[in-house]
């Protein structure tokens, strides 16, 4: 196509935090903007150019029929589609509706439910179109975002590890909150990326980055029981920002059945 790579940012159901990460990269933003053409990013610019795009960043989950159609159009316009954040990669916190009656949700909170059109499920982008890379996190880590964009432009594999939060804890020398204080922590089954923030703030990990590669959720569930947690508590631990990621979903459903 010639010229600089064209980048676009599309939003679906989300809090805007992950795309804000791009603006929060205060030291890199102007540099990135020189290396690429950000041609569609409504949160930051009135200029909204049509595709095709070289890289599209997609934030948010699919919760309406309109969005289910829109993501198909987005896919057709881009070479590389990257999903950013727990909403886009796992359905987000709004996927808690997936276990409930969404019509009841709407009736409970709306005076005129018929004005509202929403799907029964909140689903990740990958259930709708082919995704080239999923960047995890609620929110994503802006360093990982910059690394991912750089790697994609250079045509190399991004350096984004899929190991657990435990490794990050060890690396920063944080004392294990489970072993030392008996605090329930999702670190052993959660993918790294946040630099093990919660244990460094004296609390257990609550799973912002979703399941690590091959997590042993059964073993962690047993450990939580030893710590005195009820099935309901354990199930809810798995059901937060990455509730619909299949490994966490399976773990929470197993607890509910018991």
């Amino acid at each position, binding site marked *: 196509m010639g010229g600089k790579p064209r980048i676009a940012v599309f939003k679906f159901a989300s809090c*805007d935090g992950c795309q804000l990460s791009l603006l929060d990269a205060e030291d890199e933003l102007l540099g990135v903007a020189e290396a690429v053409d950000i041609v569609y990013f409504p949160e930051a610019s*009135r*200029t909204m150019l049509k595709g095709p795009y070289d890289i599209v960043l997609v934030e948010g989950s699919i919760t309406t029929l309109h969005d289910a159609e829109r993501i198909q159009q987005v896919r057709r316009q881009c070479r590389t589609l990257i999903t950013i954040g727990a909403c886009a990669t796992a359905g987000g916190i709004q996927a808690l509706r997936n276990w409930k009656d969404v019509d009841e949700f709407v009736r409970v909170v709306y005076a005129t439910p018929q004005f*509202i059109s929403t799907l029964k499920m909140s689903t990740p982008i990958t259930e709708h179109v082919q995704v080239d890379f999923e960047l995890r996190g609620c929110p994503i880590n802006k360093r990982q975002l910059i690394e991912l964009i750089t790697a994609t432009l250079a045509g190399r594999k991004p350096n984004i590890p899929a190991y657990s939060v435990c490794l990050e804890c060890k690396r920063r020398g944080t004392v294990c909150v489970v072993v030392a204080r008996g605090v329930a922590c999702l670190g052993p089954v959660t993918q790294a990326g946040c630099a093990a*923030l919660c244990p460094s703030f004296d609390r257990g990990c609550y799973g912002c980055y979703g399941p690590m590669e091959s997590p042993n959720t059964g073993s962690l569930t047993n450990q939580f029981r030893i710590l005195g947690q009820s099935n309901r508590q354990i199930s809810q631990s798995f059901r937060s920002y990455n509730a619909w990621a299949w490994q966490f979903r399976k773990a929470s459903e197993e607890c509910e059945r018991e």
Partner: protein
Amino acid sequence: MSRGGKTIRVDYLARVEGEGGIYIKLKGDQVQDVRLKIFEPPRLFEAFLRGRHCSEVPDITARICGICPVAYQMSAVHAVERALGIEIDPAVRLLRRLFYCGEWIESHSLHIFMLHAPDFLGYPDAIQMARDHRGVVEQGLRLKKTGNRIVTLMGGREIHPISAAVGGFHKVPSKTGLRSLVEDLKWALDASLSTVRLVAGFEFPDFEQDYEFVALSHPDEYPFNEGALVSNRGLSIDAVQYEEHFMEQHVKYSNALHSCLRERGSYLVGPLARFNLNFSRLPEIAQQAARDCGLAPPCRNPFRSIVVRAVELVFACHEALCVIAEYEPPPAPRVEMPGRAGVGSAATEAPRGLLYHRYEIDERGIILLAKIVPPTSQNQKRIEDDLRHFVPGLMTRPAEEITLRCEQAVRNYDPCISCATHFLRLKIDRE
């Protein structure tokens, strides 16, 4: 926009947080209909909060908004604490003010430099603006980074920080930790003063409205987490009485509810309201910065909100420095939660205005009912009223300019559409 004397339409409003558009219908020079259309998909927070433990509320509600997560955490912890009868330590109270300073600095500099200034200087965005005004954009980014540094130091990360807890914090910073912010904040205070001068020099449309301003008001402080809810028309209530005076309406064209005063209709929350109702509680340095550029309460021109935001930047940098100088760590990071049932409401001042939460909690700590009214829901009706009065004065201008000015009029409010759209519980049908 297709004009032809009929409609003004902005399908996708840029440089606001979330998905919305504007639709204005004209008949001759008469405005027939104004709609701020919000098509941000609903996420149903109040519904799925039911059944969760109240200790999770600050983490979950932060996810309503990536730009003002601290505001959600603050309104949430105060409401839950009121429900459970928890008294927080004075040092925790001070730290929460500092946490809020960080968010105000981050959010206000984002809005002033990246979202709003391009309207006044004639650019589609801050990146284009940087080609001609690199120093201005760099100053904005550095200010924003200073705000984010406070939030990150106290909460681990700038978006969805992880330290806020019912009863206090999971972990509180050390005195040395906080002191590491001082140099940046001193720079930021100077930069804020120059920001006031910069934005006060912009050209403002000659447009004033007779607003009802609503904000918190505290006897001694510019408001963050505490105070009575007051207005310039005599409202003076506690957050507990909020729902007696305010109600939400559900309109077909918007996925966000319109909030209004039961007796008097639309009202305005945010920097203009806080400034007009609390000017005397601003520190002298911020008052002086305002006076020097000819800004005094009552300011009724919404386009000047950018100057008021800059004055609030001065306040937030100054306040952060005061808190850091005064800070002694509390004996414990947080008070333990008692096992009791209760109902609690609280309102705090998010960067873009009043944010109300109410929770009903059972004796196990489980949420039975949640209600959240974000600032943009409250300003929505007022934004439409502004457009209704603003558009007739523009009719002789070229189409592109009318569209741009209407967008600017919406951006005056720094609307946060993701916040506004998460389904508020309604009670208006029996009115």
